[in-house]
């Protein structure tokens, strides 16, 4: 598995497909923190939404970095499609982890906040970024070539799914009228609600742990559906 991960990493680096999403994210971070001071949780919340979309872009390029014909050969060598896809998910999650750490530490390093961030702010900031990255990876993977054959549908599918996930936040009151529906929809709104609690909060309510856990659980369930689909195909 480590051999495949190393191969995918080097192959992805050599395709240069990471350049557009990575550049855009870095430019966003620099521009977002140009003017100081900034609120801590609100800024983190905004950058986590941007990372949510950027990770959709990263996921598609990582899953499609290998030539389609080469993918057949690689699968013949690894002899296990599940392991192959698992490595791609690991690669995406590692990318999300690195970008989450960067998003949290960059404003601290340049002293872009009005208040000095406490460990609680840093933890919430990291969880917000990483949980939304994980969710974006899971949702975007559903539109990769293993499941969606048409490349155009891949990009439209990912973009519309991520936008709808975000739009649910504003439509929550309407959605709540249909019992149980909210549990089926991507829980981006949970992260945004938690990050809206204000910088003055000195402790993290127990509910927040459950809400972050649900975002991860939801993502794992979607990844499970991905594996189910690929097994059928």
């Amino acid at each position, binding site marked *: 598995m480590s*051999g*495949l991960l*190393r*191969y995918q990493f*080097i*192959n992805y680096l*050599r*395709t240069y497909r990471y350049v557009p999403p990575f550049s855009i994210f870095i430019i966003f971070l620099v521009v977002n923190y140009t003017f100081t001071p900034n609120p801590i949780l609100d800024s983190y919340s905004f950058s986590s939404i941007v990372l949510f979309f950027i990770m959709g872009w990263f996921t598609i390029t990582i899953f499609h970095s290998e*030539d*389609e*014909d*080469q993918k*057949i*050969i*690689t699968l*013949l*060598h*690894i002899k296990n499609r599940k392991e192959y896809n698992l490595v791609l998910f690991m690669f995406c999650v590692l990318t999300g982890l690195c970008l989450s750490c960067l998003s949290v530490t960059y404003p601290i390093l340049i002293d872009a906040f009005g208040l000095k961030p406490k460990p609680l702010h840093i933890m919430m900031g990291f969880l917000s970024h990483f949980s939304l990255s994980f969710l974006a990876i899971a949702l975007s993977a559903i539109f990769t070539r293993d499941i969606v054959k048409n490349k155009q549908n891949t990009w439209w599918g990912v973009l519309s799914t991520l936008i709808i996930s975000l739009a649910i936040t504003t439509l929550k009151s309407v959605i709540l009228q249909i019992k149980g529906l909210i549990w089926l929809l991507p829980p981006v709104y949970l992260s945004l609600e938690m990050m809206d609690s204000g910088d003055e909060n000195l402790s993290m309510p127990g509910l927040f742990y459950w809400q972050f856990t649900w975002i991860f659980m939801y993502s794992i369930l979607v990844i499970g559906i991905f594996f189910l689909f690929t097994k059928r195909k």
Partner: protein
Amino acid sequence: MKTIVDIKNITKQYKGKTILEDISFSLFAHQVVALVGKNGSGKSTLLKIIGGLVNPDSGTIYKHIHPFTIGYVPEVTPSTIMFTPEEYLFHMGCIRGMVKNQLQPRIDYLLDIFNLQGSRKTRISDFSKGMKQKVMIMQALLEETNLLILDEPLSGLDPKAQSNLEDTLLLLKDKGLSIILSCHETKLLENIADKIFFINNHQVNQNNLLLNTTQHRNRLTFEISIQESFEDLHPYFEIVQTSQLNQRVNVVKVIIKLEDTDKILLELLHKNASIKQLQPINHAKEDFYNQF
């Protein structure tokens, strides 16, 4: 001869259409088997079933060697590979689970026999189609394989690259590798294949027409002066066509027996005839290629 694989009663349908129906044959050690047939006749599907890439709807593949290793070379060569052959083979070997001290000598050996030592540091994306195809075969041979499967190995290659790859395949044949391949190319079938299976109407039949290369007759075309008589040679050939090239020269096409060929050529040269073409006739071969 040792049987390595028995293919028994294989049937495969695709989108409700029968591709292969109740197919049975055996593959033997150190033999090169060619699968021929029209486009869409099921050659690639059968190779994928043998390679374990596609499951048959019914039937069984019995492998008589355990563990049985298969090297597979797909029909389409990847258009972009961002590695040098050395890096690429190293990565594929690692993905297979091979250890470095086992892998490096094998890569050196493969680069050597495939004549790619000089290109080991060049990116595969800069290679010609023929060189890319060689790398594809090399990745299939990273481990000692019991059976090498090649799906249309010469497809899309120019004549020079085809000839080069044919030499490589002959080398692998000489090394005793068991190979099954699908192809259309005459030279490959005649020079390399020990056995030819023809897929037609979802069935596989062994075809020995092409392997029987005994020639009985030749087709001869020559130019000869109109004044020159060659009636004395008439008992030895059958005139197919006589046409006038200009006011002084006739073009004559005849069919001659194999054993008379040298004698007639000599006689015609004595009569100042100009030999334009001498071609062996193999009706069996012509019939074979007319099938697809």
